């Protein structure tokens, strides 16, 4: 097993570096700053850090005001609050004018765990991908998180970055060639392509390794940028491998699977299998939840076998 590392702690540390490099970076939080690791920035730059308490609507609209005056606000809270509670503020206040606000939320997905369904954000990708001017990134590990946060800081326009509560396996042990909007090729293969984002990339790679022993060679694409989707890489994968599997730790409707299905339908339809959540989960340990709700490497493997069979029919 690969060593684990925390995406949110990495985020907090990168923010401090960015704060040193660029005086226009400001950070806003909603009384969850220990959990999101923005307290590190607050400690070093107290004058550029603002807490608004658990009042996410105000939080996001204040960020819009700061952005309109030339600041680069990074807003952090839990994913359920930052996207769901303040969706209208994201829509009218940030997405429609295209303001330079960076929403980086932690505690996404069911792996938030014991706190239960109210805290488990399985709709955040769908919500943010429904906003035309937003770029949406679900990093696969701590290494990629650092690249994504830096990319967001140097690009203009609204970003949503999805981070997690538990530490995660480091997939990018030999570095990371991150480009916003460009899928990363993780493994070559000709039989089927697994397209994954977030924590499911590690599961996809594990599945690909196991399937290789059975003689099924999987291409694995890291679709860290869910919006805009890298449709060129997707079409090439469909043409060259003839079958696609998506893997995400998010609700199917409006998530990576839906977006890939729509793009495939337009560009080059091939058999598609989806590994995603299809209902709300419950309290529990992350590994138990992933098992029960069908988000393990074994689930990806089964989906890949189904896709290969459908291709041969």
């Amino acid at each position, binding site marked *: 097993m690969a060593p684990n590392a925390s995406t949110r702690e990495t985020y907090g540390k990168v923010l401090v570096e960015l704060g040193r490099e660029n005086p226009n970076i400001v950070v806003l939080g909603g009384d969850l700053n220990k959990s999101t690791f923005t307290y590190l920035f607050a400690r070093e730059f107290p004058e550029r850090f603002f807490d608004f*308490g658990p009042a996410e609507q105000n939080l996001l*609209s204040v960020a819009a*005001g700061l952005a*309109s005056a*030339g600041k680069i606000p990074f807003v952090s809270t839990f994913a359920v609050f930052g996207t769901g509670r303040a969706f*209208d503020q994201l829509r009218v206040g940030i997405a429609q004018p295209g303001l330079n606000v960076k929403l980086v939320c932690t505690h996404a997905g069911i792996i938030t765990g014991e706190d239960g369904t109210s805290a488990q954000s399985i709709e955040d990708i769908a919500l943010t991908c429904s906003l035309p001017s937003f770029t949406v990134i679900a990093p696969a590990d701590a290494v990629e998180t650092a690249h994504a946060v830096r990319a967001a800081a140097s690009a203009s326009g609204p970003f949503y970055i999805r981070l997690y509560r538990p530490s995660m396996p480091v997939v990018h042990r030999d570095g990371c060639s991150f480009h916003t909007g460009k899928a990363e090729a993780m493994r070559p293969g000709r039989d089927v392509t697994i397209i994954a984002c977030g924590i499911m990339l590690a599961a996809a790679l594990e599945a690909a390794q196991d399937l290789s022993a059975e003689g099924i060679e999987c291409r694995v694409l890291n679709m860290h940028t869910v919006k805009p989707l890298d449709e060129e890489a997707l079409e090439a994968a469909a043409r060259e491998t003839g079958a696609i599997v998506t893997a995400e730790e998010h609700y199917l409707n409006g998530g990576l699977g839906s977006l890939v299905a729509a793009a495939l339908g337009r560009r080059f339809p091939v058999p598609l299998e989806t590994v995603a959540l299809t209902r709300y989960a419950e309290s529990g340990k992350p590994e138990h939840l992933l098992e029960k709700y069908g988000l393990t490497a074994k689930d990806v493997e089964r989906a890949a076998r189904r896709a290969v069979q459908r291709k041969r029919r």
Partner: protein
Amino acid sequence: MTAEAGSGHPGGSLSACEIVTSLYFALLRHNPQNPRWPERDRFILSKAHACPILYAALARAGYFPVEELMTFRRIGSRLQGHAHIMTPGVEMSGGSLGQGLSFAVGTALAGRLDRRDYRVYALLGDGECDEGQVWEAAMSAAHYKLDRLTAIVDRNRIQNDRFTSEVMELEPLADKWRAFGWHVQEIDGHSFPQILRAFQTAGDIRGQPGVIIAHTVKGKGISFMENNVDFHGRAPNKEELAQALKELGEAERLFREGHA
């Protein structure tokens, strides 16, 4: 403008007429030739449906040609149905009530960080104060002691469906703002001397934000629109427009002759 468009919000535009006029032609430090001038004072129209009054002021101040006003709400126009930053001089995209005061808090914080001395004004509707976010913003403006921020509540007592007292009782409104840590003034929102004096007082406050509750009449200046709920969100028809313009012409004549 609304008559030409066949839709829009004349009532709440007319109630804010003297307030917006005072800001753009007496108070704001601004430059119509350079709408994004960093040192400018910011006027944020949180009740973004009242954009006709803002567009009229911006056009007269020179942000864009007066003729463009007749393109309001038309496809391809820069003058959107609710204020949007695509219009030169418009600071914030609005249209969903309750967001403007928060936006104003953000611009005021940015001004403090950059050591700029610009002031920030946010105009809210009274019905808009039903939105919980207004009070989140109010709390945070007081917490951060934003004394360069002035809110104005257009207290015309009518919201979309009915009178505010029927939809959702706001009183005691001044006490609410005081309880949230604000300096409060109440004025006649159609009296230029009172408006100018209130802004002067608001500018002298230190250590807390100020709010001006401007008591106004919805549809002010047009007899059949005044205090008429119907004209919150409907444009006058041809006959009504003729009557309205006649009344406004009469008012202007009296003003120029020194009777008003």
